[in-house]
């Protein structure tokens, strides 16, 4: 987009995975954040443990534009294998830093950028005795070089290092030395600082840096979840890791060490979903995180939960592609698969957080909805939200929150009943009361995925079956009253609208800002749930032309809009991004320009 300037630039660091670059890259990002500058860190990593290329991209934006920028102003090219590609990616007028300890091929040259050689390995070899430290400290040395080039506040770096290595004095010394080496070498040998620098600001005040999985795991703790079942899969694993970490911190009896939670590492995702249903049926708030292949395996049980009306919360941290696909790349390609997971007439309530902050709050919303509606609720996050470092407003918890357990009759209420019927729609909202095992003999009922009538008894009777599935459809209507409304930015002046979802949000907002500056006013709606809230239809009706921006090949969100809303297919123009990388504002701007130009030409 624009030329880099003070507090508006993107740094990309190319590394080899397994060489310990993560902490140095985190240090660079945190320094910017602590200096008060809005920042986002995106990790492009391989599905591999050691030896393959990995990139970390840091965008600083005083204006608060925190989508992938799609450009690189300063590249740190630490991986010889990807050097050529990394060189090509630098924006014209940008900079590339490389390790000049070894000679570089003379063909690897570009005249429109500045190439800066720093003898990183040489410095490390001279100053650190052991081999592992030499490899690790190279990363910290380039952080020191960047500190000089971008004019970082050195006190901030020192404080961060002191905090990180408070209990590891030898590492603290080594890190401080490495930073100083890089910084001083750059001051002595380079023209510093660059034309674009970091300057202390206050725009990150009141924020934290967190990834969506950590926020969702924390949200599950605050929602009162007690049972978690899972099977490891990228990119969802860190969600359960976070839940476990926060449970260990807050849910253990300090004296006995006993846990007020139960986490089961399941044998596979089929079992994980079964455990969630079993626990919810028994009365706990239970959840499982998974991704792509795991959702496929959970389908049978998701349909069971829908038909037998058992609450469940599933975090689907979407990854890229059919089958195994690209497990470490992002996408929004499970929208349809999640909405209709399982055979038969099945449909599921979906929630779409757009960032880690929403992941935190969506967790309790998901449990409330699952219990209120007695059905599985699927939270669709993605790798970009789940595993990248986002700047997010500080999280707040209202201590007056009470979980909505829905219609659960406990022993004392059951005792008062004449007779209990599990699927009888007494309140005419298509939600029947349930009871919990062990509470009271009068509350006993038999849960089954086979045909049942409104009393809970087995049936193969045509009318009785239809009565139940028609009520489930009516419950879908009830759900519309409870699900979160979309985010809408509307002005009556505009006849064009963009509809987007989840992690498209940042890029869409930045794109609409840019278009507005160019005199093109466009309204915005971001879907937060399926079923769609009534405002979605209204937004569709209020515009002549709509763009549906999403991250998959097959226009899955548009597909749902066509099925559920009253809208002509032609009115919804697809903007589809599906190469596995997060969406950029440029992509959206270009697509809209191209479409508008097409209209003018015709």
């Amino acid at each position, binding site marked *: 987009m624009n030329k880099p300037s003070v507090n508006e630039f993107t740094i990309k660091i190319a590394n080899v995975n397994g060489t310990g670059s993560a902490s140095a890259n985190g240090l660079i990002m945190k320094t910017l954040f602590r200096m008060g500058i809005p920042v986002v860190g995106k990790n492009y990593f391989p599905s591999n443990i050691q030896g393959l290329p990995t990139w970390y991209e840091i965008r600083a934006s005083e204006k608060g534009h925190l989508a992938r920028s799609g450009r690189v102003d300063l590249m740190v090219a630490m991986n010889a294998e990807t050097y050529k590609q990394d060189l090509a990616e630098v924006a014209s007028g940008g900079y590339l830093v490389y390790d000049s300890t070894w000679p570089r091929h003379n063909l690897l040259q570009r005249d429109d950028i500045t190439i800066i050689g720093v003898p990183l390995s040489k410095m490390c070899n001279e100053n650190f005795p052991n081999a592992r430290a030499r490899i690790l400290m190279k990363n910290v040395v380039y952080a020191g070089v960047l500190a000089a080039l971008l004019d970082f506040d050195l006190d901030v770096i020192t404080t961060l290092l002191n905090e990180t290595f408070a209990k590891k004095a030898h590492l603290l010394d080594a890190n401080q030395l490495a930073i100083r080496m890089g910084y001083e070498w750059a001051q002595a040998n380079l023209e510093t600082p660059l034309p674009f620098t970091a300057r202390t600001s206050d725009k990150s005040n009141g924020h934290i840096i967190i990834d969506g999985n950590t926020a969702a795991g924390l949200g599950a703790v605050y929602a009162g979840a007690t049972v978690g079942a899972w099977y490891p899969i990228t990119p969802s694993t860190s969600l359960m890791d976070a839940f476990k970490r926060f449970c260990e911190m807050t849910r253990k009896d300090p004296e006995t060490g006993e846990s007020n939670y139960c986490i089961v590492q399941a044998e596979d995702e089929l*079992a994980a979903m079964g455990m969630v249903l*079993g626990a919810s049926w*028994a009365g706990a708030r239970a959840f499982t995180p998974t991704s792509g292949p795991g959702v496929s395996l959970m389908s049978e049980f998701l349909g069971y939960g829908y038909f037998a009306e058992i609450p469940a919360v599933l975090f689907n941290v979407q990854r890229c592609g059919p089958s195994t696909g690209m497990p470490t790349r992002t996408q929004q390609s499970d929208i349809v698969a999640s909405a209709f997971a399982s055979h038969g007439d099945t449909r599921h309530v979906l929630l779409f957080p757009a960032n880690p902050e929403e992941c935190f709050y969506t967790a309790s919303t998901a449990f409330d909805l699952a219990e209120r509606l007695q059905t599985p609720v699927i939270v669709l996050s993605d790798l970009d939200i789940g595993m990248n470092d986002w700047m997010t407003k500080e999280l707040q918890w209202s201590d007056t929150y009470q979980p909505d357990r829905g219609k659960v009759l406990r022993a004392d209420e059951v005792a008062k009943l004449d007779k209990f019927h599990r699927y009888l729609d007494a309140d005419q909202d298509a939600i029947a009361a349930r009871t919990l095992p062990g509470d009271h003999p009068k509350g006993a009922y038999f849960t089954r995925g086979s045909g049942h009538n409104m009393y809970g008894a087995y049936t*193969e009777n045509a009318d009785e079956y239809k009565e139940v599935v028609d009520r489930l459809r009516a419950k879908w209507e009830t759900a519309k009253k409870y699900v979160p409304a979309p985010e809408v930015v509307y002005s009556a002046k505009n006849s064009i609208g963009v509809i987007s979802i989840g992690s498209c949000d940042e890029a869409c907002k930045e794109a609409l800002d840019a278009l507005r500056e160019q005199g093109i006013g466009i309204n915005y709606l971001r879907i937060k749930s399926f079923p769609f809230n009534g405002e979605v239809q209204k937004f569709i009706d209020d515009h002549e032309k709509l763009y549906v921006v999403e991250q998959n090949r097959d226009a899955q969100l548009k597909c749902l809009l066509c099925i559920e809303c009253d809208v002509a297919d032609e009115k919804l123009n697809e903007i589809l991004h599906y190469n596995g990388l997060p969406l950029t504002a440029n992509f959206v701007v270009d697509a809209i320009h191209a479409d508008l130009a097409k209209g003018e030409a015709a």
Partner: protein
Amino acid sequence: MSFIKKPAVRHPKLPLNELGLTVRDYEGGMSTLCAGCGHDAITGAIVEAAWGLSIPTHRFAKLSGIGCSSKTPAYFLRDSHGLNSCHGRMPSIATGANSANRDLYYIGVSGDGDSLSIGMGQFAHAIRRNLNMTYIIENNGVYGLTKGQFSAAADRGSKAKKGEVNLQPAIDPCSTAITLGATFVARSFSGDKAQLVPILKAAFNHRGFAMVDVISPCVTFNDHEGSTRSYKYSRDHFAPAIMADFVPPAEDIKARYEEGEAMPVELHDGSRIVLRKIDKDYDPTDRVNAVSNLMRNNDAGEITTGILYLDESQPEMHEVNNTTATPLIDIPYSKLNPGNDMLRKIQSRYR
């Protein structure tokens, strides 16, 4: 319809248990299985064992997979919550339910198809966790509900109704369970209530995973000449190795047994199982001995029955996890919510 109301007639002469309930109070809906199906006899044994232990009816949770066998939880304990899950997936439901509420008696009913083919993975892992439940396999060597295909428990050489011979080796749930780490493994025969009821009583009171494999002939698809799961074959090859008696906590053992001949094993609630050896070589407390005996007897075509392996010392899932004694569902939200102050503290690490 397999849920027909059974009239709840109170027979004045029926004996009462400690709760003042008759055996009828532990029954369920009317069975819709084929007349003579082994599974119905097992249902009867479950009813009798539950009644005999005087456990309040609603303190059980009945879980099952899919199959004729898995339908049976509708036919016992009408005052208990039941859940008929997906084919082969009952163990995961049981794991979840038990995670949430560790205080109930969990009875899982499965078939040999349900457990040993589609559900083999979940079966194995529930055992590994030593999930506190009673897991009954109603073993007829076939898939009853899908009309008689061989199951993985069919013996090599056993003949199907239409003459086809099974050429693959059988999976023996008992030796499999022992090698997987099960802490209570028993086998019985649906036709022998006298043996089965005390085994079930012991299984209900065992702390951990109690696997009970019950040979349960399918009269419709696997009760013919040439089948190794027919009533006749089962009776002819029935070989009790260990007889078990269940002794409630209050009763004195000495009065009933001579020392030496019987081996009392104390269960966690103070009740005891008294094991009496029929086969003098069989040692139900020694894993290796139990497995090698079972394998030898299996190869000889004998159906070894009784409590085949028992280890009361292993921790069950919650003990391994160190979960609070209070069932998780009974912990109020106020105790689960770490509060906003804690949230602020946690976030200091994310700055």
